[in-house]
């Protein structure tokens, strides 16, 4: 360890903390003090204990564990390795100096080195022999052509510098191409980091662009998210059991037997009336994969959101819920729709689908219904679709539109803007956005409507 005794120790620790911070860890002085304090209780010469103590006090996050491990190995280098490293850097430095001297000697004009920067000189020495000779010859020829005064010198400098600049840019270009070719495999770090990265990548990549091998993983991720959300919804329901404000009427009534002394406090019960969710998934060719993802996500929620109806549409409307109930398993149902429905993959007609929905299933459209349309808004007969959506909008509580197009493309489509004026349009082209739209915005506020019901009032009125 590069721990020089005495006060340097604290400095070293502060340096290590700075390194961790530069790697993105949130790390305050308090943590650093904790770390120093913890070291008083362990055998500091034992590398494993030392590392554990620092890790327990400085890292607060699973993600950061790996960063910590890597930084630790880089910073606290064992003695032998440290010496090796030191020899290596010394060697590199000496080599660099000799190269600079060499460059200065070879590129001198009348015994005076050309005024090149250090980078330029290093670049020169890293060129291959032919290129170097070319430059040298050029310098020598210019020198020979030179007469008494030095009018050629500025010209020479410019040419040499320009030459070196050319090689420099050429090299950068090459290394960039190489970098691209290396692809994903280049990163270091173990299995776990890669799997965490993959999950993050999956969450943030465009659902429509997912590659075939990623699909099972993406589905698993989606499944996990919908179960997490589900758990939250269950808790939300439990939470609704906690009491509301004091109900004076019921309190007084309950305490009549105590002579009106309020021993038992009665609280208002909150009754939550559930919303009806109606999902409308666009299954046209361009939307097929995306919609099946979204449908799967909602299908996972079915156990808690009991009143969930699912429809799919392309040129006609398909009612999916009964099939889902009978056969269970979204995959089979979607497969059947593919095989049977002529609608699958055809031209999208949102207007027709919405009209059919309004006419055929009007009992599902109430003031408690939230309609969620999953579509990229591309449709035939846009002019008919707009009034259909408007009419639907008037029947139900809300119309949400999950749009897989990235928001920067929205202004390009007239249909997005037109639909967006009637329905709430949410961007939703990655799994992360889908989760945010559903968990963060839809369920956070509206799945259950809080209604403080004064039950007694109603019975009272009744009796009268």
């Amino acid at each position, binding site marked *: 360890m590069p721990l020089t005794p005495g006060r340097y120790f604290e400095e070293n620790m502060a340096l290590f903390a700075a390194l961790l911070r530069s790697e993105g860890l949130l790390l305050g002085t308090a943590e650093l003090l904790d770390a120093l304090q*913890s070291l008083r209780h362990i055998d500091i010469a034992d590398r*494993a204990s030392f590392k554990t103590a620092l890790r327990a006090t400085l890292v*607060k996050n699973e993600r950061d564990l790996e960063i910590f491990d890597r930084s630790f190995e880089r910073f606290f280098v064992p003695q032998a390795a440290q010496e090796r490293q030191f020899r290596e850097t010394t060697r590199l430095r000496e080599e660099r100096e000799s190269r600079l001297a060499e460059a200065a000697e070879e590129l001198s004009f009348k015994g005076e080195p050309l005024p090149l920067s250090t980078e330029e000189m290093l670049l020169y020495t890293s060129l291959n022999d032919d290129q170097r000779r070319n430059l040298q010859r050029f310098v020598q020829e210019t020198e020979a052509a030179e007469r008494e005064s030095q009018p050629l010198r500025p010209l020479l400098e410019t040419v040499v510098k320009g030459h070196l600049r050319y090689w420099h840019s050429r090299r950068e270009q090459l290394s960039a191409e190489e970098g691209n070719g290396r692809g994903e495999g280049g990163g270091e770090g173990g299995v776990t980091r890669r*799997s965490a990265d993959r999950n993050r990548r999956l969450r943030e990549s465009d659902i429509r662009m997912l590659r075939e091998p990623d699909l*099972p993983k993406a589905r698993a991720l989606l499944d996990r998210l919908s179960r997490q959300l589900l758990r939250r919804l269950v808790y939300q329901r439990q939470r609704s059991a906690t009491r509301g404000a004091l109900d004076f009427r019921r309190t007084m009534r309950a305490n009549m037997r105590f002579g009106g002394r309020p021993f038992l406090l009665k609280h208002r019960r909150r009754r939550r009336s559930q919303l009806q969710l109606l999902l409308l998934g666009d299954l046209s060719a361009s939307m097929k994969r995306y919609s099946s993802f979204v449908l799967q996500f909602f299908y996972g929620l079915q156990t808690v959101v009991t009143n969930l109806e699912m429809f799919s549409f392309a040129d006609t409307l398909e009612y999916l819920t009964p099939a889902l109930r009978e056969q269970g398993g979204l995959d089979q149902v979607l497969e059947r729709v593919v095989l049977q429905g002529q609608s699958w993959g055809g031209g999208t007609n949102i207007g027709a689908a919405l009209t059919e929905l309004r006419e055929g299933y009007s009992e599902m459209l109430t003031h408690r219904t939230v309609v969620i349309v999953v579509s990229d808004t591309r449709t035939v007969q846009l002019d008919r679709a707009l009034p259909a959506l408007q009419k639907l909008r008037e029947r139900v509580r809300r119309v949400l539109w999950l749009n897989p197009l990235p928001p920067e493309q929205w202004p390009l489509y007239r249909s997005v803007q037109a639909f967006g004026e009637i329905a709430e349009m949410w961007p939703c082209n990655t799994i992360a956005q889908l989760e945010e739209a559903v968990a963060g915005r839809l369920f956070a506020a509206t799945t259950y409507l809080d209604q403080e019901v004064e039950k007694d009032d109603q019975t009272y009125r009744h009796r009268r």
Partner: protein
Amino acid sequence: MEVELAQLRRGFDDVGYICDESALLTVYLALRLQKPLLIEGAPGVGKTELGKTLAQVLRTELIRLQCYEGLDETKALYEWNYQRQLLRIQIDCLLEGDRLAEDDLFSLSYLLERPLLKAIRAPERRVLLIDEIDKCDPEFEAFLLEVLSDFQISIPELGTLHAETIPAVVLTSNNERELSDGLKRRCLYLYFSFPDVLRESRIIRTRVPEVGERFAVEIARVIAHIRSLEELRKKPSIAETLDWARALVALDKKRVDGALVDDTLNLLLKNRQDQLLFHRQIGREGVEQLLQQPAGLGEDRECR
């Protein structure tokens, strides 16, 4: 009552809680620095168990606060015993004695202690286990932050109650949501991953001594193999491993084979999808194959 590291290690061994050296050291540091210990990890890796074990090792009472959404101060901290206060007023009205002072009504005898207050007011150090902290609301977390940083509780009618002794606090989280930085900052951090084959077989041997050494390793290998299926909804926990081991002992088995795993899969995977996944990706043959390979090839790495 200061604990030494060796003492702690012996205590954990005696109780039969097998953990690696760095976990032990972290627990030790949390005790020495008197800081809460936050443990994260997948469900079923022994987070809660660590809290319970700690109470056993320190020979003290375990005070447990199970978090859930909607948990509030009245359930976690204290509540005034309203009925008793009212009764007292009633009695005072009937007896024509000294007038009742208001202070008397808001004294400790009318206070219902909930876990947090109980842990703080205990005359000697207790172990306070705050389980599944990620399930409580952010507001409650903020409130907890205050309690855990100062170990004091302000009750408006009564004043501030300071901790007599600072309890050993263990918080567990399943990572269902990110905890606030403030809370994390107050805690030492420990991440539990599933144990490797060697450690898990030791756990099995300790908890289910009837299992032979070779049998335990086989069980642990099969479990590790099942856990390596990344798409599982729920990976088998250590408790489930132990249940399975006990079941195998009850069935009078001495070796693991493919058919046996197949027949007793219900004990490990409690979900239809997961079972199907097992059949698809591992199945009887996969188990047989695994057991025919020599132990310790590539499966020793800890899986998450």
